[in-house]
């Protein structure tokens, strides 16, 4: 057997009492929270995809009367908002959660309970926003909610209220998570894990957290203004009081453009993990890959007004923003070419994960090129707000972010569950996605260039857009079959997928030294890292245990799954491995408080929606503060000896709390 990594003596799994519903509600384990993010976000993604289906069905032919203008407007608003804030961002967060501690050699994130809180707040925000469908008043202001259309004067209903408040809640979740991951990456790296040894996904995540930290407060302010205008009668966007609608646009896009890099950089990171593994070559130009991430993020803050070329900013601003936007193509191009350099000379094995990763290179490039076409302001005057833009952003977000995320899911599923996703279904998923995606979105370029404006619930006959729209609608159905294959694959492989050992792909990074699934405590002992690719370390090449591609064909869909269904490892659910306690590892105790805090935090927002019900708002606020106190005053871990590093003699027994820092930091 071509086992390259010996199965460790502590095959990991959760014991029975750790798998009930309560355990999920109280979990503070980053791996479980990662899974919660993953499955929740996939559900939202499917809902967003269903909304896209209704959109496509309405647009299949001119003057179709399938849905009303108002419903259509709600659909595209919720489709865009859902895909971005409830789909791609939390899918990325799923990987941040699951992977970052594993990749840097940590037992958990810096603040495990804050992490659980982020998840529950995200769930609450998504539920609140989608609750609007049930009351028949889903948001309808477009995903970038331009004022003054979104002010009370022009949108009197509760629709926009759901949108504003939902996004505010989601912002809290993203920010809390970002503080957490920044701290984790800065401070929890295993010994020897220098910054320039960090796996590239961790780097991409690190940069993304900075984007989140710096971009989200801006939209928080923009939304707060809108919220105050709508609820308290302030004048930030009140035209009659002399307000300038461009205030919203500048604030929104000052957030919004960094946001699109928040959507793509994690996908870039995932792909940068997948490509080396299946090329059996290190990432080409690792340092440059890191610098380009940083440069993209940095430039990303200076280009926001390219969404506003039609607002009449004047020639100087147009020129400046046009040129700075173009500059971003350079670091992004470096990434594309370095990926090609990684593949070049490799030994490429086209697993599903690899197919999606290569698919990203192809499709994202198309989206990037249309982005550069937008960046020329005069040319953009024809393209903006037409279907050309719709084509651009689906190529970068579906062809980029989603492809990268799919690659990541196929690649890391065995690490998450101990089982492989089915490769055959995976290939169906990939090829139908690739074909369907091009069928759906490529014709949109042409529809846009031939005059079709976006966000139109209908279009007249004989305008020259019939074929494009028909093809796009057909493409949607191809995509829907692809996604159904994916959903089936996920559901069946969770319980029936092929079992694997630590490192089914022969991958190089730290997380693959761990059993699959990973035990609660991740690392029984903290590793010392001495290279960027510990599992491929050069000096060990040629030794028997060096990862080499197996020559024997196995019965699996792809030839090189290293079959380490090991004798050491029992059935899942059978605690055959030492528990954390056995190993003397102190893990954070499960607690319901993050969930309670998330619920309490949501109450004031619900109160605002209930006709600004003051008692509910104040009650919720007080409850939140109370839960927060109770949370912060409970130690994160079960009582144990004070850390030696505190350099302080033990305090009297029996009052362990007095001895801990009085609030646990997490």
């Amino acid at each position: 057997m071509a086992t390259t990594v010996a199965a460790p003596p502590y095959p990991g799994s959760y014991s029975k009492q750790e798998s009930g519903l309560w355990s999920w509600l109280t979990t503070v384990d980053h791996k479980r929270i990662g899974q919660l993010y993953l499955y929740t976000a996939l559900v939202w993604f499917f809902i967003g995809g269903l909304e896209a289906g209704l959109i496509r069905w309405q647009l299949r032919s001119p003057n179709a009367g399938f849905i009303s203008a108002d419903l259509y407007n709600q659909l595209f608003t919720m489709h865009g908002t859902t895909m971005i804030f409830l789909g791609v961002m939390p899918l990325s967060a799923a990987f941040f959660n699951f992977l970052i501690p594993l990749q840097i050699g940590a037992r958990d994130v810096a603040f495990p309970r804050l992490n659980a809180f982020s998840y529950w707040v995200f769930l609450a925000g998504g539920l609140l926003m989608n609750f609007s469908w049930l009351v028949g008043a889903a948001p309808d202001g477009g995903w970038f909610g331009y004022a003054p259309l979104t002010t009370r004067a022009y949108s009197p209903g509760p629709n926009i209220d759901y949108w504003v408040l939902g996004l505010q809640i989601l912002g809290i979740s993203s920010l809390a998570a970002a503080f957490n991951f920044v701290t984790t990456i800065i401070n929890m790296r295993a010994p020897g894990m220098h910054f320039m040894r960090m796996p590239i996904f961790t780097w991409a995540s690190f940069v993304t957290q900075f984007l989140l930290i710096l971009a989200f407060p801006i939209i928080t302010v923009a939304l707060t203004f809108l919220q105050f205008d709508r609820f308290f009668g302030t004048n930030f966007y009140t035209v009659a009081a002399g307000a300038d609608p461009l205030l919203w646009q500048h604030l929104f896009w000052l957030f919004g453009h960094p946001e699109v890099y928040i959507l793509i950089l994690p996908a870039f990171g995932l792909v940068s993990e997948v490509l080396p593994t299946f090329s059996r070559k290190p990432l080409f130009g690792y340092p440059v890959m890191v610098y380009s991430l940083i440069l993209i993020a940095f430039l990303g803050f200076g280009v926001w007004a390219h969404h506003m070329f039609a607002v009449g900013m004047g020639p100087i601003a147009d020129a400046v923003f046009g040129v700075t936007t173009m500059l971003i193509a350079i670091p992004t191009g470096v990434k594309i070419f370095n990926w090609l350099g990684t593949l070049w000379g490799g030994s490429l094995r086209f697993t599903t994960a690899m197919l999606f990763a290569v698919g990203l290179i192809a499709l994202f490039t198309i989206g990037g090129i249309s982005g550069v076409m937008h960046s020329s302001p005069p040319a953009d005057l024809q393209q903006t707000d037409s279907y050309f833009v719709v084509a651009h952003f689906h190529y970068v977000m579906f062809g980029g972010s989603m492809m990268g995320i799919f690659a990541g899911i196929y690649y890391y599923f065995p690490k998450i569950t101990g089982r492989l996703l089915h490769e055959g279904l995976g290939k169906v998923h990939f090829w139908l996605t690739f074909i369907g995606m091009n069928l759906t979105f490529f014709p949109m370029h042409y529809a846009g260039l031939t005059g079709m404006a976006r966000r139109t619930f209908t279009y007249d006959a004989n305008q020259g857009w019939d074929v494009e729209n028909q093809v796009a609608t057909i493409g949607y159905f191809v995509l829907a079959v692809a996604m159904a294959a994916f959903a089936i694959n996920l559901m069946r492989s969770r319980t029936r997928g092929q079992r694997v050992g630590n490192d089914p792909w022969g991958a190089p990074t730290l997380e693959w030294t761990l059993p699959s699934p990973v035990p609660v405590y991740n690392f029984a002992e903290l590793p010392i890292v001495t290279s960027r690719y510990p599992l491929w370390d050069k000096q060990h090449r040629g030794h028997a245990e060096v990862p080499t591609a197996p020559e024997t064909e196995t019965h699996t869909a792809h030839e090189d799954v290293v079959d380490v269904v090991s004798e050491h490892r029992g059935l899942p659910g059978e605690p055959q491995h030492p528990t954390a306690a056995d190993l003397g590892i102190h893990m954070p105790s499960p607690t319901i408080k993050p969930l309670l805090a998330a619920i309490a935090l949501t109450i004031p927002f619900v109160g605002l929606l209930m006709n600004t019900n003051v008692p509910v708002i104040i009650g919720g606020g007080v409850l939140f503060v109370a839960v927060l106190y109770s949370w912060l005053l409970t130690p994160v871990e079960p009582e144990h000896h004070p850390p030696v590093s505190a350099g302080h003699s033990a305090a009297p027994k029996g009052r362990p709390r007095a001895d801990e820092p009085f609030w646990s930091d997490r």
Partner: protein
Amino acid sequence: MATAAIERHDAPHHHSSTGLDNTKIAVWAFIGSECLFFMSLISTYLIYKGRNLVGPLPHEAWTDPATGETFKAILNIPVTSASTFVLLMSSLFMVLAHSAVVRGDRKYSKIWLASTALAGATFLGFQAFEFTEFVHAGLTLKRNLFGSTFFTLTGFHGAHVTAGVIWLITLLFIDMKRGLGPRDAGNVDVCALYWHFVDVVWIAIF
């Protein structure tokens, strides 16, 4: 084993790559975020300053052409200077409180924590006074752009001060109950960091 590159060792349980406290890093990140938050608020205030269609205005009197009613200039530099001074002093008290905690000086840690909280509360008192004055002078949240931006900006700052005061009182309470010592320095440090930040923001606003 292929994990040869990863030697195992018994790391201390609370491992930290930088030697810094996790909370401190997180609070720095939080402050970074807050900078952008207040920058957005302050920019809006500045952008909208000259766009008011009706008074009252910050620096000059304004007469309503329709009614002939005159609104006096709103901003009262002496009062604001006094409250700014109080807030600045509180930062000093905070520094003293922190060093008292590091020394393990239970008496002065209490005194200085209490002074800091009190100074913060005094600032809030000034702010409440000013807000009522302004409302009497005709400036409300809804009145004009100046009212909306001014109250939102200073209101958010006030909310931050309030949170800080609550934090300080919590520290004080713990100090009285079981005493704050050097082992708590990190936590007091974080509070101090936040408090100084809130202070600096006020200077920027002022």
